[in-house]
């Protein structure tokens, strides 16, 4: 019996164009993409560090003397303040001592002291404002530029614009906290209306299967697997010859080859066993590895968890991955393993912050030694800040009014760009606050991309990462 030829699809396809290309025309097609750049880039790759739960700027990066002066008194900013789940308590200074670092004398608190070594090259922005004090929306705003679902993540935009440097690895990798995803989970790394190959690929270093379904089932032999890919190609090519014009078919044939290559390349990239001990120490890895004791939250374990992700990130970037997104902290759950320190800042922020700082300092040092810091941007962000007043005895509630981001590498110039007010409650100058759009515009700029020109037509709107906002932060870029 011969293959059916007179299907509806073939008939419509024969009218011109083919179903495949019809499906594709309403999607993309922008000049320069693939080449991707609008001007010479300074950076080629990005690491985004996301602190899930809302990191407290006043306890880490934004020193507020006023809080020490007012310590213990009812916090009174001179206006009625509505908070997420509490009423404003007493003025609460940082739970840790701040010290000066570098030539700039930038103040950092004790848990993040490991970053002091690089403080002169870090661009701090203390006047970020968001649009909400709700985790789900706040997280999405930082990761996708919109506080509602449906929009591609920054990593997807970068992957889309620049393509991959290594055919055998995904261009965008996500390293989630092994204890759970941040609020809104996969939406933080989805490609949405961009081509699906730009979505983040989740990798779990330390897990038995670091990428879902990476390895063949136990019931299939190595030879059966390899021959399956070959036979599939043969059969699929026969099939595609009778269906000319459907681009999807060839793309799918290719995806099986990529999958097979990825099994080898991903396994190799994740193998840290041959890294020298001094490198493992640099990143704060524990001798016990990922199985280190975490029954009570502690600095050693958090350094192992975060540091290992940083080391894996470096290996992935070396191998051509464009965008690595590292998450610290999960979404709720008990016991708390995230930055949402409503109950106890000292207990929860301390180990997470120190683990983050140890791992990140190791990463910066390592990239520097390899000559990669100049063309790699590291962006530290979180969904919003925490209040300068206490919540209960030992916690802080959400501060949606101002928070901190920082960046280093990729031609970014160190310094402080934007201050918060005397408490760390609101921006010092509310009319000139920084928004995520400006951070993203600056990031794209360093990658050689004009954020206003990287657009995709979707539902009759020319969509972009920065919506209709954003400007490159002057002074931060050379």
């Amino acid at each position: 019996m011969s293959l059916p030829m007179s299907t509806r699809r073939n008939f419509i396809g024969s009218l011109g164009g083919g179903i495949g290309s019809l499906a594709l025309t309403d999607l993309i097609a922008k000049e320069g993409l693939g080449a991707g750049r609008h001007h010479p880039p300074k950076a080629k790759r990005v690491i985004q560090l996301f602190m899930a739960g809302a990191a407290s700027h006043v306890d880490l990066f934004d020193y507020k003397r006023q809080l020490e002066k007012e310590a213990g008194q009812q916090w009174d900013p001179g206006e009625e303040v509505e908070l997420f789940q509490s009423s404003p308590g007493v003025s609460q200074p940082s739970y840790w001592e701040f010290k000066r670092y570098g030539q700039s004398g930038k103040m950092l608190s004790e848990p993040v002291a490991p970053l002091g070594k690089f403080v002169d090259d870090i661009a701090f922005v203390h006047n970020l404002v968001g649009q909400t004090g709700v985790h789900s929306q706040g997280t999405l705003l930082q990761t996708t530029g919109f506080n509602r679902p449906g929009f591609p993540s920054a990593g997807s935009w970068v992957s889309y614009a620049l393509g991959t440097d290594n055919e055998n690895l995904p261009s965008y990798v996500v390293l989630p906290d092994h204890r759970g995803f941040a609020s809104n989970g996969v939406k933080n790394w989805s490609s949405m209306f961009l081509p699906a190959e730009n979505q983040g690929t989740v990798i779990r270093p330390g897990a038995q299967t670091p990428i879902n379904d990476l390895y063949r089932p136990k019931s299939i032999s190595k030879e059966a697997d390899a021959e399956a890919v070959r036979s599939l190609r043969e059969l699929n090519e026969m099939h595609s010859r009778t269906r000319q014009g459907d681009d999807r078919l060839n793309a799918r044939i290719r995806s099986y080859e990529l999958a097979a290559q990825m099994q080898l390349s991903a396994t190799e990239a994740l193998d840290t066993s041959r890294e020298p001990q001094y490198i493992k120490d640099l990143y704060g890895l524990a001798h016990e590895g990922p199985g280190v004791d975490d029954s009570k939250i502690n600095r050693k374990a958090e350094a192992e968890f975060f540091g290992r992700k940083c080391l894996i990130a470096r290996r992935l970037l070396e191998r051509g991955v464009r965008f690595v997104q590292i998450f610290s902290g999960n979404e709720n759950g008990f016991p708390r393993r995230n930055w949402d320190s409503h109950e106890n800042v000292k207990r929860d922020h301390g180990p997470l912050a120190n683990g983050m700082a140890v791992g990140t300092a190791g990463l910066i040092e390592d990239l520097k030694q390899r000559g990669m810091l100049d063309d790699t941007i590291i962006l530290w962000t979180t969904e919003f800040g925490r209040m300068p007043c206490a919540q209960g005895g030992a916690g802080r509630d959400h501060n949606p009014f101002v928070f901190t981001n920082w960046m280093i590498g990729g031609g970014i110039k160190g310094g402080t760009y934007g201050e918060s007010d005397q408490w760390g409650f609101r921006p010092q100058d509310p009319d000139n606050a920084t928004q995520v759009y400006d951070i993203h515009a600056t990031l794209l700029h360093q990658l050689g991309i004009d954020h206003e020109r990287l657009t995709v037509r979707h539902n009759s709107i020319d969509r972009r990462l920065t919506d209709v906002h954003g400007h490159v932060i002057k002074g931060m870029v050379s």
Partner: protein
Amino acid sequence: VAKRDETTTALQALSLMNNPFIEAMSAKLASRTSSSEGMLRVALGRSPSEQERDVLNHYLEAHGAPALARLIFNLNEFTYVD
């Protein structure tokens, strides 16, 4: 104009080849019918062509019925409805 497919990724291929669900379903199909003719009829609603029969039978002989079923589930023709 660069054309890229909108939904196909290597991750999809990994899922369809390696997910435990596919392993279970392959075993089921193989227990229903162990010939390549039988499997294609169930999965695609048609008999194989001469050329296809060669490829399928060669694979069946070398690797067994469940492995063949897994292969058939990964065919473009199984994935895309005409």
